[in-house]
């Protein structure tokens, strides 16, 4: 008889040394579990799944997962994933990134992957800080908070990840938190099965760096804050004046539009069938 969450256990790399690198109380493990449960629920073949990450605490996730895994350079995971997906459009390509990896150094690749609507699932674990390197500001660090590189208080506004993804062209955009695991599971499952660029912002926290610098030392306190400070999209929609400082959880966008690898298949067909457009004549002559 299949155990509950048997997949979660089966899909871990057992010949990889555990315990993992994350701090006790970190939310990244919850996101990892969520992804494993999605793979199980969707009955995906392990050989068909690729997990690609960037650099940071979230970047350390793929090594623990028994799929085709790749830990790449800072901010570039989506670009590596684009190449893999084009070579193997039949594979399920899931990219996990932290907020800094995806939106600072990786910002350009994030918006272009969304613009192409390439069939990749991008899970951004947003803990509002650069945790791995000791707590420096990230593009989502809240205004006025203290960080290792903002000792007098952060003076920058955070990126709205979901709005950014939508504006750039993603076809599925959702947000939940590591407290709301059931909802997170559902959203990740939907994102993975979505044909197109699917973004899930998984709001988490870093008690070790951000929490410690901002008077929230315990992971439980920060987890509780995720519960208290968030509202559902539906609830916010019903309110006259929805509170501005809450984490809004929900699916913001789920549309169908042309997907990149399918469009390229049409290019291949065109190159082999219909007559090509007249060769472009340039000043320097025929190429």
């Amino acid at each position, binding site marked *: 008889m299949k155990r509950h969450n048997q997949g979660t256990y089966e899909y871990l790399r057992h010949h990889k040394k555990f315990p993992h690198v994350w701090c006790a109380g970190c939310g990244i493990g919850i996101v990892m579990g969520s992804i494993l449960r999605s793979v199980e629920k969707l009955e995906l073949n392990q050989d068909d799944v690729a997990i690609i990450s960037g650099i940071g605490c979230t970047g350390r996730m793929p090594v623990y997962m028994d799929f085709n895994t*790749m830990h790449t350079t800072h901010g570039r995971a989506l670009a590596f994933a*684009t*190449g893999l997906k084009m070579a193997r459009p039949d594979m399920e390509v899931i990219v996990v990134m932290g907020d800094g990896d995806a939106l600072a150094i990786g910002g350009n690749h994030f918006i272009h992957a969304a613009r192409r609507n390439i069939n990749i699932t991008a899970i951004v674990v947003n803990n509002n800080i650069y945790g791995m390197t000791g707590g420096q500001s990230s593009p989502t660090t809240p205004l006025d908070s203290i960080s290792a590189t903002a000792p007098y208080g952060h003076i920058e506004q955070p990126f709205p990840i979901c709005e950014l993804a939508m504006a750039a062209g993603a076809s599925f955009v959702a947000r939940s938190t590591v407290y709301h695991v059931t909802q997170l599971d559902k959203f990740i499952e939907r994102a993975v099965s979505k044909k197109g660029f699917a973004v899930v912002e998984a709001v988490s926290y870093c008690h070790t760096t951000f929490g410690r610098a901002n008077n929230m030392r315990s992971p439980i306190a920060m987890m509780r804050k995720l519960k208290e400070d968030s509202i559902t999209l539906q609830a916010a929609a019903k309110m006259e004046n929805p509170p501005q400082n809450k984490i809004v959880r929900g699916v913001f966008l789920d549309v169908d539009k042309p997907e990149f690898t399918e469009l390229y298949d049409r290019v291949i067909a*065109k190159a082999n069938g219909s007559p090509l457009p007249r060769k472009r004549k340039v000043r320097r002559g025929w190429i």
Partner: protein
Amino acid sequence: MTSEPQLIQGNRACALGALAAGCRFFAGYPITPSTEIAEIMSRELPKLGGKFIQMEDEIASIAAVIGASVGGLKAMTATSGPGFSLMQENIGYAIVTEIPCVIVNVMRTGPSTGLPTSPSQGDVMQARWGTHGDHPVIAFAPATVREAFDLTVEAFNWAEKLRTPVFVLMDEVVGHMRERVELPDPASVQVVNREMPTVPPEWYEPFGNPPSDVPPLAPFGEGYRYHITGLLHDARGFPTSRLDEVQPWIERIFRKIDRRRDLFPKADRDGIKDARVLVVAYGSTARSARQAIKMARARYGRKVGLLRLRTLWPFPEEEVARAAEHVQRVVVAEMNLGQIALEVERVVGRERVLRVGRADGVIVTPDQILDAIRAQEPPSLRRGRSRRSRE
């Protein structure tokens, strides 16, 4: 068996060579003077069922190339100086993760934006040391349109054989010049493919240490699930910092290339046997050098030899040492202010080397090289000779 003669430019020959070698993925970004390669690949790849994508920048381009190679496709990008600089981090990634790919750099005058439409050979040392950390590299330098085809094929074959990125260092002259060539029929081109594992997935060591020093490479999605990381790693691909795992890995990464240094494309030798002066050159500068030695022999009866390097890295120490053995002077001519010259000086001794270089966007002329060749003569013999070369 060759196809019909055609008049094509070096960039086109490079693209055709890639396709003949089995390249089925190109990701790139437009940059003069390499753009034609991207444009031609965008047109030709889909005809062969291959994939082309113009990425948002060069960093993404090389990343996509690596990702596609992991997915099982032979993959390439092409760029010039500024793009090459951007790619360095991910090139290091490909070296550490041992993923085959080809990077073409059609060199233009730098540094920075430089002279976008002028040639140079200024990225030779960058190709060697551009990415951080200690690592070996392989780089070839075509000097003709036909060689742009042939050495691109070689680049793919060595990339696959040794699981490493390989550079094709053209310069703007070779990239844009047109020559009459008769390219081989793609079907007759010898192609090497990466070695697949022969053991079951549970036993597969993607970064193991077989006798060849090159572990087999299973593409993703074929039943071999493993981890690839830029962190230093063990035979399975898992991060490690243990000395007994890191040290052998470093040695193997160097050894896999170093032990085969005699197998890379050999230099072209011309008139070296009885030479008193040796000219060392590569790429388009070698074409000027060939003219210079012709002039030196015909006009001045000088015994000059030319060693035209085709492999720049690993630096062909043996070939250079052997060619320079009995000569009085070695003239190193390049479109930079002394990069391969540093290697030649190291191998044959600084006192024997005379550099001819420029980094101003103009090719090194035959006269410049001729002057350097003749500068070796004792002053008495120069009396009464032609005064043409006064530059």
